[in-house]
C-alpha cells in the first residue's frame, strides 16, 4: 500500500510494456470502433514515424485501470459491502497485489501491446466501479456511459452499478428512496450517452450512419471474423432464415443474467458486477482476451472465498489448455492450411467452458460464504444444493 510499492509496480509494468512495444511487427489490432476514438488518435503524432506516443497512451490507460483497481481493492467492498459482511473478510488481498496481478497478467499485457481499444472500455468500467464505491455516483455514471459508448455491453452493468452507488452514497447527500436515486442516475447516463452520440453525429458529417456501422454490427453480427467467442462459427453455419431468431436468442440470453444476479446478490453489488463481467467475456458477440483479463483482474478481490471454490484446478487447466492451443490451431487453420476451422472452434468451446466453470464456481463460493453467516457451524463441512 505504500507509495513506493505502488510506484514500483507501475514502473515495472510500464517498462515491460515499453519493451514489448519496441519489438517490431507486433500487430496493430485497431478495428472499426466508435467515431470519437478517431480524433483522439489523430491528436497523437503519426503512428508510423513516432510509435512511442501510441505506446505511451496505451500504457497510461493500463496504469489508470490498475489505479482504479487499487482503489477498489483497498475499499474492502468485496468482503464488506454496506449490507453484508463476510465472515472471512480479514483474508482479503491488498490493493497492490491485486494491481500487480492485473498488470502482469499475460492477457492484459497482450491486450495493451496489441493496442486493442477494449482497454479503454476496461478502464472506464473500472473507474465507474471505483467511483461508485467512493461515493460519487455522478462520476460513476459518466464513466459507465463512456464505456457503453465504446462497446454496448457495459450498459447491462447499470443496475448493479446503481445499487452499488446507492449503497455507498456519502451521508451528506443521501437520497433515501432507491427508485428516485435510480431514476436520477439513469437520466444522467441517458444524458451523457446522448451527448456522446450527438458529438459522433457531428463528427461523421451530420449523419446517423455511424450507428449502423458501430452498434449495428454488434447487434446483427455482420462481421464474422474468428475470435475466442461462441457467436462467429454459430452464425457462419446458420442458414439465413434463422439468423434473426438466433440473434435475438443470444442477445436475450446475454441480458438475462443481470436481473437474476442483481436480485439474488442484492447485498453484494460489486460481486454482481464481477460475475457479470465474467459472463460477458464468454457470451458477448465479439469477446477477446481483454474482456477475460478484466474479469481475471477483479477475481483476486475475492481471495477470501477462494478456499470455497471447488473446481479451481479444472478451470485453470482448461483455460491454460485453450490459451496454448488456441493460437496454434488458428495458425494451423489460417496459415498452415493443415487444420480446418473445427480445430479452432473446439478451442473456443474449451475456453468458454473453462471460463463459465470459473464464473459459476465463484458464484457458488460467494453464495456459500453468504450462507455461512446464518449457519456458522457448516464451515468446512460438505454442502449440497437442493
Amino acid at each position, binding site marked *: 500500500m505504500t507509495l513506493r510499492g505502488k510506484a514500483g509496480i507501475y514502473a515495472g509494468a510500464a517498462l515491460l510494456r515499453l519493451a514489448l512495444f519496441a519489438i517490431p511487427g507486433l500487430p496493430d489490432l485497431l478495428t472499426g470502433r466508435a467515431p470519437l476514438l478517431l480524433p483522439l488518435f489523430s491528436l497523437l503524432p503519426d503512428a508510423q514515424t513516432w510509435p512511442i506516443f501510441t505506446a505511451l497512451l496505451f500504457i497510461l490507460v493500463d496504469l489508470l485501470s490498475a489505479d482504479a483497481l487499487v482503489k477498489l481493492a483497498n475499499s474492502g467492498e468485496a468482503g464488506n459491502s454496506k449490507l453484508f459482511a463476510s465472515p472471512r473478510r480479514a483474508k482479503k488481498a491488498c490493493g497492490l497485489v491485486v494491481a500487480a496481478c492485473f498488470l502482469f497478467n499475460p492477457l492484459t499485457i497482450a491486450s495493451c501491446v496489441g493496442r486493442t481499444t477494449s482497454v479503454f472500455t476496461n478502464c472506464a468500467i473500472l473507474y465507474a466501479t471505483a467511483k461508485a464505491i467512493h461515493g460519487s455516483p455522478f462520476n460513476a455514471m459518466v464513466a459507465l456511459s463512456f464505456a457503453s459508448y465504446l462497446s454496448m455491453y457495459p450498459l447491462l452493468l447499470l443496475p448493479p452499478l446503481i445499487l452499488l452507488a446507492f449503497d455507498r452514497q456519502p451521508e451528506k447527500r443521501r437520497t433515501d428512496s432507491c427508485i428516485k436515486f435510480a431514476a436520477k442516475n439513469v437520466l444522467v447516463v441517458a444524458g451523457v450517452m446522448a451527448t456522446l452520440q450527438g458529438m459522433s453525429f457531428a463528427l461523421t458529417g451530420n449523419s446517423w450512419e455511424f450507428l449502423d456501422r458501430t452498434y449495428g454490427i454488434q447487434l446483427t453480427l*455482420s*462481421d*464474422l*471474423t*474468428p475470435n475466442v467467442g*461462441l457467436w*462467429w*462459427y*454459430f*452464425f*457462419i*453455419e*446458420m*442458414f*439465413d432464415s434463422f439468423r434473426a431468431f438466433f440473434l435475438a436468442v443470444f442477445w436475450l*440470453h446475454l441480458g*438475462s*443474467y443481470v436481473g*437474476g*444476479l442483481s436480485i*439474488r446478490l442484492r447485498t453484494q453489488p460489486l460481486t454482481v458486477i464481477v460475475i457479470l463481467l465474467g*459472463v460477458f467475456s*464468454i*457470451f458477448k458477440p465479439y469477446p477477446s482476451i481483454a474482456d477475460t483479463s478484466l474479469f481475471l483482474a477483479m477475481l483476486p478481490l475475492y481471495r477470501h472465498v477462494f478456499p470455497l471454490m471447488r473446481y479451481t484446478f479444472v478451470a485453470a487447466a482448461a483455460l491454460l489448455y485453450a490459451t496454448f492451443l488456441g493460437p496454434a490451431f488458428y495458425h494451423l*487453420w*489460417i*496459415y498452415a*492450411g493443415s487444420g*480446418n*476451422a*473445427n480445430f479452432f*472452434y473446439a478451442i473456443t*468451446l474449451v475456453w*468458454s*467452458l473453462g471460463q*463459465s*466453470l470459473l*464464473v*459459476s464456481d465463484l*458464484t*457458488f463460493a460467494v*453464495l*456459500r460464504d453468504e*450462507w455461512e453467516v446464518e*449457519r456458522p457451524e*457448516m464451515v468446512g*463441512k*460438505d*454442502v*449440497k*444444493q*437442493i
Partner: protein
Amino acid sequence: MRLLVSWLQLLLIAPSLLVAAASDYHEQLTLRPLPFSSVLASFHFRSNTSLTDFESQNFRLFPRSLGQILQHAGTRELHLRFTLGRWDAENWGARPWEGTREGGTGVEMWAWLDASTDEEADQKWLTLTNALSGLFCASLNFIDETRTIRPVKSFQPEGHHSAETLANTRLLHGVLPHEVVCTENLTPFIKMLPCKGKAGIGSLLDGHKLFDASFQSMAIDVRPVCPPGEDCFLEVEETIDMVLDINRSKRPQGNSIPRPVPPQDLVCDQSKPYHSDKTCFPIDHLGSPDWNLAQVFGRPMKGTCPLADPEVPPVCIQVPGSRDVFSTEGSQEKQGADGQSRCYLLDPNNDFTLALTNLRSDDKATEEIVKPEAPLLYADRSFTGYGQEHGGVQAILTNPSDEEVEFVYLESLPWFMRIYLHTLSTHVSTSTATSTNSSTPNSDIIKEVYYRPALDRARGTQLELVLRIPARHTVFLTYDFEKAILRYTEYPPDANRGFDVAAAVITILSPRGMNLRTTSLLLYLPTPDFSMPYNVIIFTSTAIALAFGGLYNILVRRFVGADEGPPSPIKAKLAQLKAKFMRKPAATVQQPTEAKK
C-alpha cells in the same frame, strides 16, 4: 424515348433522309498470323440504323431484341464484353482494336443510362442486366450492386452525345469474372447478325474452335454516331477476336486427341549438338505451318452475305509481301486500306478459303509474319503473401516505350477483400527485375486517387488511380488487404476454388488512347467446415446451456448440509433395490436349514 425525340429535333436541321441501304451493314474478317504459330482472327460486324427507324421500331439490320431492350432500359450507349483467355502481349504485341474491344475475363459491361438520380440509374441498370442476361444466356443478372461501380475517369463515351444529354446520364460498370463464356453465349451473338451465320464471314464462327482459342473476346458496342452535316444514326458493332493456335485448330474435329507426329514429319532444331536420327528437339511451333481457312475454322466460308456492302472486301489478311497466299477461284485480290494487308472480294455463291504455305526456305531474311507492334504498356497483377487472413496485391506496370505514359488504373474489388488504402505504395525501377534501387515518393507516380470504400454485402471497392510512368521504367504498385470470412450460404459450391477478382482496367490517356486489362485473380478465403452446421449449433447450444444451467442452479437452489435435507428419490430407490437383493439370498439360505430340521 421522348428525350431522344426532343434531342433529335434539336439537332436535326433538315428532315431525316433515309440512309442508303448499301452502307448500312458492313462486315470484315481480318487475319493476322502471330509468332509461335498463332493466328489472330478479328470478325467485325457493323450495322447502322437511323434514329427515326429506331424510334418507330422499324428494325431492319439492327437486331430487334437488342434494340427493344435498350429502349426499355433507357440506355444511351452500351458496351458488353465476353472474354476468355489471356492476351500474351510480350509475344503478340499490341492488342487488336487498341484494346477497346476487349474486356476482363468473364463478362464486363458498362453503359450510359438516362437517369437524373442514382436510384433511377440503379433501377434501369437492374432492368438492363436482367434483360441482357436473358438475351445472351449469360448470368448477367448476378451483376448486382456488389459488382457495380461508377467509374470517374476510366471510360469516356464513344458515341456523340450532346452536353445536356450527357449531363442527364449515369455511367455504370459491372463485372462478372466468374462467368464461363461458352457456346450458349455465341449463339445469340450469331443470331443478331443480319445473315445469321449462314453466309459471309459469320459462317466461319464455330463454338468448338472459338472456345478452344488461346484468347477470345466477344464484344457488342451500341452507340449513337453523328457525322458532321448528316443525320445521326445508331450503330451496333459486334466484334469477335480470337487467337487460334494453328496446330491445335488443325486437329480434325472427330479426332482431336493430339497424337505423336510421324518421325518424317518432325521439324527439328538442327543446330542442337544432339540432333540425329534418334533425338530431335522439335521447333515446329516456332515456324509458321501451312494452314487454310477451312482447316483452322473447321468449316469453309459460305460466300458473302448479300446484305453486306459489296464495296467492302470481307476478308483481309496481314502478311508480308514475300508470303504466298492462295485463295479460291473467283475471288479478287485488292490492296488493303492500310497498305500492308491483302483483301479479297469474293464470289458470292461459292465457298471461299485462303491458304498459306509453310516457308521452307533457308533464307532467314524472308519474313514469315508482320512483326507485331510493341504495346505502350505491359501490365501484370498478382497476389502476394500467404495465409487466409491477410494478403497483398502487386501490379507490375512496365513502360517499354520512349515516352512517358499516363493512364488510369481501375479496380473493382469484391467487398470481402478489405483493402488498406494507407498501404498503397509504389516503387520504380528501371528494369523489370524487382531490385529496389529507388523508392520514389508516391506523389511522383500516383497523380490522383479516386477511392470508394466497400460496405459489407452492399457494395465493393472502387479504386481508380491516375498514374504516370516515365519512359522505360517499371512501377510496382502494391497494397495490402484483409480477407473476410463469409456465411455458409455465401460460398459457391466449389468453395475451395476461390473467388474471382475482376481484372484491372487500364485506360491510357497519353500519348494516345488505348486500353488494356490485367488477368483476373483467384482469392482464397477461409472456409468453415461445410459438413457441420447441425453439429456446430448443437455444440454451441450445449456450451451455452451448461453455463446458463450451472449458474441458474447455483443461484436458485438453497444450501443444506450434505447429510441434511430430504433424501434424493433416486438414492432411495437404489437403497430399496439393494435391500431386495440382500433379503433374497438370506431367504434361500434359511430354507435348507429349515428343511434339514
